[in-house]
């Protein structure tokens, strides 16, 4: 079965053209094609997973065929299936399946319903391709394709310029990270003569790649991760990307695509690990900055989706932080990726349900929904608790592992950051729950509970959010996903650290409850004064990018280039033409019309020629 694992991405890929060309004529307007395809993929993923569950140290499955030969090196379409791949398969196909089922209801009245499902299928296929790829270029293909799908889906409601702007911003920002990523690929290809990721990893392990090249390669690759996983300083696109339909956010911007950067680091971990130590240090620093600043931002958002978005960035930073701790953090980092996918997708779907009901994203127009949408409330609460690190839910286990590993590996500063972020996380999630579901209803629409198609996936995800966490302390996950042969440091869960992180979470919850028990205008955090403004302005980063970089290139610089092109470059061309005409205009005055003047020229010409050419001895 594992030999045909390649079918997992291929099925949704086939679904895409089918939906595009036939979808409109199907009874379910194409949705069923996508759902069936991804459902089959999911089942196959489970089978693949089972293979690794059955045997934690099963050999990775490699296969491939030549895509094309070019000069000396040949490019392959190939697959590399190991435990990590299998886990990712399951996550992607499962979340995609949930989201697609959910969307049949959520997007019910959308005018581009069919196209929406086509894009979802394309995304799923691309993401799965990214996961299965054993070739950097192939991975890049998937990498960019998920980017364009994100662009298309974020801008799905492009009638409103805000949405298409967000799509462009998402694409361009991640593309900015992709360029160093591309160069990193070049470095590794030229260093090893192959783009096969497994070979490159082996090469790095065996010391076949020089330190300098590893350094450059790893840093540049991380550039891609910064873009895709929305790490500082390229995190700015993700909150804006919330402009897309909420299920899209759940799938792409919470569970899968944004995790691709983390996955990349995990997949190429030999390169990072064997590179000079500074690389992982740098990765950790970036992660620390990101998790802190975005958690702070999440505190003050009014838009529930933005809260979740910043939270996502922050949690991604957790994962990255985990990986930055080296082999010890490898499994926890990826485990957090795994658990986060469930509860964050759940949170988004639940938020979507709320938004669906109240026709607004803003928490200031919600409140008191606990009674009107009890199911949604409960699942949201489960998600929030999981995210906040309340045991025994999923987030607790994975986050706790990272925090404790940070401490145990003597990376105390990172420990401090992770712990502080945990407090903040608990705080802002408490705030979100309170503002959304408690107090009085402040909205205008008539809220109603989600239909079955939406509720089902939410319930399933909620259930999973409760249980998947136990894969951590039971070390099952570590058996499937580990670095370098053997699972790393398997030791019993350190309840001391669990207590610390739980304490932190509780602190966050308590403060949040204290502040947001009742609906208050203005937000109590405004009392922070200038600090609040700083957060409100998103540390002015968007302003710097937007006004300083994008607008200045888009208008003054571009206009200047255009002016230079017209006036100077083209001006020179036209100037030559005008000069020729001008000279012609002057020279024609020689033709004065007076025949005797002509005769003067004639004789003078002879005399001058004679003077020049006759040798005067």
């Amino acid at each position, binding site marked *: 079965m594992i030999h045909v694992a390649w079918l997992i991405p291929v099925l949704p890929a086939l679904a895409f053209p089918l939906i595009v060309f036939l979808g409109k004529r199907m009874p379910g307007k194409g949705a069923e094609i996508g759902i069936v395809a991804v459902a089959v993929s999911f089942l196959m993923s489970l089978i693949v997973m089972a293979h690794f569950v059955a045997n934690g140290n099963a050999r990775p499955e490699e296969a491939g065929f030549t895509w094309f030969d070019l000069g000396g090196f040949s490019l392959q379409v190939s697959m590399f299936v190991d435990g990590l791949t299998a886990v990712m398969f399951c996550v992607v196909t499962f979340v995609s399946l949930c989201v697609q089922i959910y969307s049949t209801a959520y997007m019910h009245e959308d005018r581009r319903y069919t196209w929406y499902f086509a894009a979802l299928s394309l995304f799923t296929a691309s993401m799965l391709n990214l996961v299965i790829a054993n070739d950097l270029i192939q991975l890049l293909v998937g990498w960019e394709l998920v980017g364009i799908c994100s662009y298309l889906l974020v801008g799905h409601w492009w009638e409103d310029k805000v949405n298409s702007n967000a799509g462009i911003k998402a694409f361009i920002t991640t593309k900015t990270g992709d360029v160093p990523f591309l160069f990193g690929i070049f470095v590794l290809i030229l260093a090893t003569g192959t783009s096969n990721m497994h070979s490159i990893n082996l090469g790095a392990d065996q010391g076949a790649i020089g330190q300098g090249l590893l350094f450059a390669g790893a840093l540049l690759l991380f550039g891609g991760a910064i873009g895709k996983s929305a790490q500082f300083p390229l995190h700015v696109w993700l909150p804006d990307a919330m402009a897309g339909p909420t299920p899209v956010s759940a799938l792409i911007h919470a569970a899968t695509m944004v995790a691709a950067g983390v996955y990349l680091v995990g997949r190429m971990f030999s390169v990072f690990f064997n590179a000079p130590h500074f690389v992982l240090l740098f990765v950790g620093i970036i992660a620390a900055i990101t998790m802190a600043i975005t958690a702070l931002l999440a505190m003050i958002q009014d838009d529930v989706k933005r809260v979740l978005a910043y939270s996502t960035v922050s949690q991604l930073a957790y994962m990255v932080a985990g990986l930055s701790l080296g082999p010890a953090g490898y499994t926890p980092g990826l485990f957090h990726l795994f658990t986060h996918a469930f509860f964050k997708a759940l949170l988004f779907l639940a938020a979507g349900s709320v938004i669906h009901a109240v026709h607004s994203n803003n928490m200031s127009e919600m409140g008191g929904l606990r009674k009107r949408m009890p199911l949604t409330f409960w699942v949201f609460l489960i998600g929030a608790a999981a995210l906040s690190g309340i045991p025994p839910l999923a987030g607790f286990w994975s986050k706790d592992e990272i925090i404790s590993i940070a401490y145990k590996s003597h990376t105390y500063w990172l420990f401090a950051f992770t712990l502080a972020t945990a407090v903040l996380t608990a705080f802002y999630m408490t705030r979100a729950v309170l503002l959304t579901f408690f107090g009085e209803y402040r909205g205008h629409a008539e809220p109603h509970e989600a239909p079955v198609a939406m509720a089902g996936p939410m319930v399933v995800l909620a259930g999973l959010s409760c249980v998947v966490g136990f894969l951590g302390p039971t070390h099952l996950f570590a058996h499937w996903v580990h670095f370098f042969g053997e699972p790393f440091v398997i030791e019993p869960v350190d309840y001391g650290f669990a207590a610390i992180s739980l304490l932190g979470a509780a602190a966050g919850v308590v403060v949040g409850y204290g502040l947001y028990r009742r609906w208050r205008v203005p937000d109590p955090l405004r009392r922070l004064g200038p600090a609040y403004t700083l957060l409100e302005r998103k540390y002015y980063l968007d302003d710097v990018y937007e006004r300083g970089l994008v607008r200045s290139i888009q208008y003054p610089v571009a206009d200047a280039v255009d002016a230079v092109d017209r006036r100077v470059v083209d001006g020179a061309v036209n100037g030559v033409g005008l000069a020729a005409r001008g000279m012609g205009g002057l020279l024609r005055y020689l033709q004065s019309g*007076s025949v*005797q*003047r002509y005769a*003067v020229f004639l*004789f*003078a010409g*002879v*005399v001058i020629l*004679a*003077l020049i050419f*006759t040798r005067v*001895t």
Partner: protein
Amino acid sequence: MIASISSQEIAFSVIGVVGIISALRLVTTKNVVHGALYLVITLAMIGAGYLVMAAEFVAWVQIVIYVGAIVVLLLFALMLTKAPIGHEALDNQQRGISALVSLAILSGLVFLVLDAFRTTTFSPLAQTSTAEIGQDLFKHYVAPFEVVSILLLAALIGAIAIARKDEP
């Protein structure tokens, strides 16, 4: 530079000076008819020069065609065109540059001639006779002779067509 001056040279010099002076008058005179007369003198002096150089056939052709025919033709033209008299009427505005060009040509040619032929002399009498010229003309130069007749014919017909007053 002149080792000895022969009588022929004296004669030629005199002829030359007269010819040049009248030529100069021709291009400076204020009266066109006078100009024609100066032309006659110059042409005649040239003919005389040919005689001194013992090229008598050319000399007589010179006198007959130029003095006899061409000058008359020119005089007719002068009368037909009622040319005005006076400095301004006969000269254009570029006398200065003309003089300059003319002097440049003169000095150039004189330089070249003296440079090449300072010492060359010839004895006129030892040379060709009219009979020889006639023989050569019809022996070697029949072709141009025939062609030039067509030229004259064409010039004649064309000149008539052009100068004729009536409209076709």
